[in-house]
């Protein structure tokens, strides 16, 4: 089986503080849709950050897209990040850039021509129903709209893996539906592996997903 994410006995924490996660195993295969749930402060976001190298691993083994995250640095980390798409809880859009340019970011980093970037950005903005706001700046949009832009940006370069941190946490029903349908579509049509950190798994997901739970610093799969 081709594991996109493989974690074994991992320990994670911030600087010299006590570890947030003391033990965890996780295996996510290509095209899986996985949820990570747990109480507030249980370390869900910390775990997600370790998957794209924002937090270093303390112990154990972790590989993402075949790249070991035990001591990733420089070019290796940059390469990994170009394979993945990230949706942050606080959106993290570049406020000085237009919505369209924000969506183009991963493509610009990937070295695509401007015409390709614009075409792809417009296609995704149409999917998230924000094409009419392509020339606006993020601060001119509502929270739900900003999250949809962030989702479009995360999918712009057809990533192998998409990591989303509470993508519908503060959204209205309409925006939430748009986000979930986009995630499902990315998995079905692009073969993207999806990992979502959330408090609640939407009922529309059915049963075709993996579920990992974090409790008292221990990560385990819910069968």
């Amino acid at each position: 089986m081709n594991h996109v994410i493989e974690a074994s006995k991992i320990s994670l924490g911030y600087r010299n503080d006590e570890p947030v996660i003391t033990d965890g195993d996780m295996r996510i295969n290509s095209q899986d849709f996985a949820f990570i749930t747990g109480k507030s402060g249980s370390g869900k976001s910390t775990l997600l950050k370790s998957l794209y190298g924002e937090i270093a691993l303390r112990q154990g083994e972790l590989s993402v897209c075949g790249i070991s995250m035990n001591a990733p640095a420089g070019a290796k980390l940059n390469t990994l990040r170009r394979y993945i798409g990230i949706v942050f809880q606080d959106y993290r859009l570049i406020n000085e850039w237009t919505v369209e340019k924000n969506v183009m970011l991963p493509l610009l980093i990937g070295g695509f021509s401007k015409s390709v970037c614009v075409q792809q950005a417009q296609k995704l903005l149409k999917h998230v129903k924000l094409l009419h706001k392509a020339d606006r700046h993020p601060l001119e949009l509502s929270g739900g709209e900003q999250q949809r832009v962030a989702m479009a940006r995360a999918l712009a370069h057809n990533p192998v893996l998409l990591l989303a941190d509470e993508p519908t946490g503060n959204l209205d029903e309409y925006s939430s539906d748009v986000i979930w349908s986009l995630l499902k579509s990315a998995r079905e049509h692009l073969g993207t592996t999806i990992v979502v950190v959330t408090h609640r798994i939407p009922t529309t997901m059915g049963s075709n997903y993996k579920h990992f739970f974090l409790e008292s610093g221990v990560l385990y799969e819910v069968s």
Partner: protein
Amino acid sequence: MKSLKNHFSVIFPLIVLLFSFQFTRGLEVIVAEYETRITNEYSIIVVASKTLEEADIARSVPSLKAMEEVSPSVILDRLKGDISTQNLSLLQLSLPKFYNLKLSSFPSAKALSKIKSDLERMDFISRVETFAKTYDTIYRILVIAKSMAYVFMGLIGVISLLLMLKQMRIWVLEHKERMDIMTLFGAPFWMKSAVLYRLAVVDSFLATCFVVALFYVMPSVPEIASAAAAIDVIIPAIEPLKEGGTLLGISLFFALVSVSMVMLKVKRETP
């Protein structure tokens, strides 16, 4: 307004740096010109009891360029009315030989003193007049001014670099959020810092244009030109393309080094 202030915080130290560099270069040219002029005008007078050969003098004075005998006829002509022709002929016979020595370069005070003592040691030479004090004073002032300009330029360079580094840190803070987001999407170093490099290039270009324009106009300002003429100095005009290119190179070097130093620090601190 804030953006203008940010640009000015880089442009100002660059202008000061380029001004001090160009000022020092100008001073170098003035000193070199003055050196050539006083070398051409300068001569040593030697009084000898017999005819001297140029080759003999050249052995003691390697920088000798030319030697010519000074005819005493001008002085004797003045005395024609006061003394008899016979006495005048006797005086002419008893007069020593006067020589004017031209040098290929203007010697330092120490070298001049050595030339004088070497000449005085020679047989038949009774007197050597170097007129050292007259020429040496202004020359020394210019050399001191040139040395001070070098020290001044060095200090300005260090202070400018520190000021620019400080401004670059402010730029980095302003662009930090954007750079952090780009880092999370795997942007290479050059792409994250492209904006800062672009700002540095634009500011270098603006600072260079200002300094070139200043030095282009300065020699033709009547007050400055007349002040320079009063001390017998010609302010050299700047060559916009050649010297402007050098100035642009210097400002680019300083601005880009500042950006790189700050960005490399950011790179080390970013996960």
